[in-house]
């Protein structure tokens, strides 16, 4: 067991911490929200300068050559700052799909551009009727025009509105929820027949409904073997769950420390509310939940690269349940301990609350992952 970071990892963490502390205060964030894409292109450039957009990519692709731990370090800081940029969508989800599913040529064409900050990706997999079921894909891919033709619709595609390229899943053969027969396709945002309607999620990040009507895809834009993409999809989602776990930890840390600070300064009945034992115990419970959640986010991080798919899936599900429950508890108590002020849009804590809520409902909620675990109880 080893919880220490290497020197390089520490340097990476410090540089992100400094960048976010300098540039990503709550007021700055409000200004970023007003930009056309709903996030800061300037910050995106700075992430690129610092090498953050290439953290998990190989050095030959302009990357940092990092793994899940490096991604965790970045995501934790983004979580603390409640960053709005499409890091998860582009680097973690889209990047992992290309990294694990793409040919050498595809990787060479895409990953360096992502690392430079000139190409943004989105992972267009979830569908309206699929809920959390990863194999439930009704979008179809049929042979035609010397390549593939895609038809269907994708729902709640994170940052799908500002992405330059979408990684789209579509069914080549098989029944609606057959894991077999699904392909992943690289589709330009401007492709004929692709339409996007962007909107804001509860946490103010952006997403889109994407519809595909006879969208032509060349054979060279199929990621991996057409029809056998499900294992890649699973790994993209697992990587996403691990990254969001780190983000949730960053958000929980902030909620915990804001609440602690508030309990010291807010006075009622002539004394700080934090002098009441009830409040002290509640803050202690928040701390315990945060630490348990942190442990589970770490579990997800180290599991992402586990070679055994069953073991990996099991640990990822455990982690999602664990940090999801922690995030729900910590965020609910953060509002409760703030009283009325915690309920307002003007105050930061409610924004962290809603990021936690969105994370919980992404890639399977607590009930979904518990059911997966329950099915395996011996």
């Amino acid at each position, binding site marked *: 067991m080893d919880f220490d970071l290497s020197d390089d990892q520490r340097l990476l963490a410090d540089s992100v911490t400094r960048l976010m502390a300098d540039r990503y205060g709550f007021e700055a964030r409000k200004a970023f929200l007003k930009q056309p894409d709903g996030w800061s292109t300037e910050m995106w450039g700075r992430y690129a300068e610092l090498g953050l957009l290439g953290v998990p990519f190989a050095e030959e692709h302009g990357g940092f050559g990092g793994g899940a731990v490096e991604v965790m370090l970045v995501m934790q800081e983004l979580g603390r700052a409640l960053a709005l940029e499409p890091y998860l969508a582009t680097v973690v989800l889209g990047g992992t799909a290309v990294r694990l599913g793409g040919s050498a040529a595809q990787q060479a064409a895409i990953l360096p551009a992502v690392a430079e900050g000139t190409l943004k990706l989105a992972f267009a997999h979830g569908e309206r009727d699929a809920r959390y079921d990863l194999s439930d894909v009704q979008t179809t891919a049929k042979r035609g025009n010397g390549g593939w033709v895609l038809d269907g619709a994708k729902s709640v595609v994170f940052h799908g509105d500002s992405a330059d390229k979408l990684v789209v899943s579509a069914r080549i053969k098989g029944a609606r929820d057959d894991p077999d027969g699904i392909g992943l396709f690289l589709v330009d945002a401007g492709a004929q027949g692709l339409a996007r309607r962007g909107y*804001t999620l509860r946490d103010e990040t952006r997403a889109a409904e994407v519809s595909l009507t006879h969208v032509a895809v060349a054979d060279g834009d199929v990621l991996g073997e057409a029809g056998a993409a499900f294992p890649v999809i699973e790994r993209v989602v697992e990587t996403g769950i691990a990254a969001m776990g780190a983000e949730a930890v960053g958000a929980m840390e902030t909620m915990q420390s804001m609440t602690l600070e508030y309990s010291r300064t807010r006075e009622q009945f002539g004394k700080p509310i934090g002098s009441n034992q009830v409040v002290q115990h509640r803050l202690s419970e928040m701390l315990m939940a945060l630490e348990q959640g942190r442990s589970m986010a770490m579990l997800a991080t180290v599991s992402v690269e586990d070679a055994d798919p069953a073991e990996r899936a099991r640990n990822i599900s455990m982690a999602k349940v664990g940090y999801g429950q922690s995030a729900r508890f910590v965020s609910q108590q953060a509002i409760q301990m703030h009283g009325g002020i915690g309920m307002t849009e003007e105050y930061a804590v409610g924004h962290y609350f809603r990021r936690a809520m969105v994370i919980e409902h992404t890639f399977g909620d607590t009930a979904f992952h518990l059911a997966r675990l329950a099915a395996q109880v011996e």
Partner: protein
Amino acid sequence: MDLRFTPEELAFRDEVRAFIRDNLPADIRERMRLGYSPRKQDVIAWQRILNRKGWAALSWPKEWGGPGWSAVQRMIFIEENQAAPAPELLSFNITMLGPVLIQFGTEEQKRRFLPRAANLDDWWCQGFSEPGAGSDLASLKTAARREGDHYVVNGSKIWTSTAHNADWCFVLVRTNPNAAKRQEGISFLLVDMKTPGITVRPIISIDGAHHLNEVFFDDVKVPVEMRIHEENRGWDVAKFLLGNERTGIARLGKSRERVAAAKEAARAVRFNGKPLIEDPTFRQRVAQLEVDMKALQITQYRVVSAGAKKSDGRPDPLSSVLKVKGTELLQSTTELAMDAAGPLAMPIWAQELAEMANEPDMLAEAAEQAAGNYLFLRAASIYGGTNEIQKNILSKAVLRL
């Protein structure tokens, strides 16, 4: 002992149900069924329909338009009305101001305000909390200085729900800053929201909606005859108001309505290849909430029945049980409804729905409202005395710790 409703009570419940079914305008019902908060005009329209029937001034004496119901009947009505779902009677008018006027008001004040409050001709709001005075309400600072036949009010109130809709506000002010006890320097005033010097600033809450406000008073003149009860005795009025009508505080009908919304969503979405409603874990969660609702219903019944037999008029400390358990339950039901919506609970669909207006999307609409309800009702354990404060009351008043 019999925990069931009597045949008369059952008949009464059926009568209430039938009346709501036959008289609640369909568009209001439909919006509420999707989880929307009622709009101002919906609240007014429904309260006027009820008032015409004589069912608005719930706990008021008959001479002031009350229906003459027992506490149990009021409980049944409130629950049926919430579960319908129909807009609730405006509590500021019906459960707060009305009983206060009846207990402490002059004949002139009663005649002027009660009929209009019952019919929602005047929309009232509650100006108690201040930035520095939340749980510790008695530390309020908004000052009223006596000048001849009026008071001059300066200060600010916060969290004033619906002040932006309101015609009038009942306000706690400090009339004697030098009183020996803080509680002894407070008065209770009725303030016309149109009076010069009042500014209402919206506060948007985490559900993105406008329920709350800050209200600023800048040399606001309030005639002395707008004071309720004696000068510096306003704390007695506030205590009466806060402890007065606890029926309905458990908000069981609203919990029932949220569980129904969750079930409806669960019929429409799939989980493990089957409708979510068939998933054993989901069903267990519903079953657990039904157990909790049943327990609370019986506890509420007991508190209400005991209250009807008590003669001292003092609030039952057990009503804190109803508040804490009721809001915990309500919050759990909003979590269930949101979780049932799944990933659809994440987007703010309004813009999308507007663009796609020719294709109504009830599932998305209900999902958005499920998330909105989850977010806004985090406040249920904060307003009306936080749950921590309710437990302090139980510790002191019941357990004598």
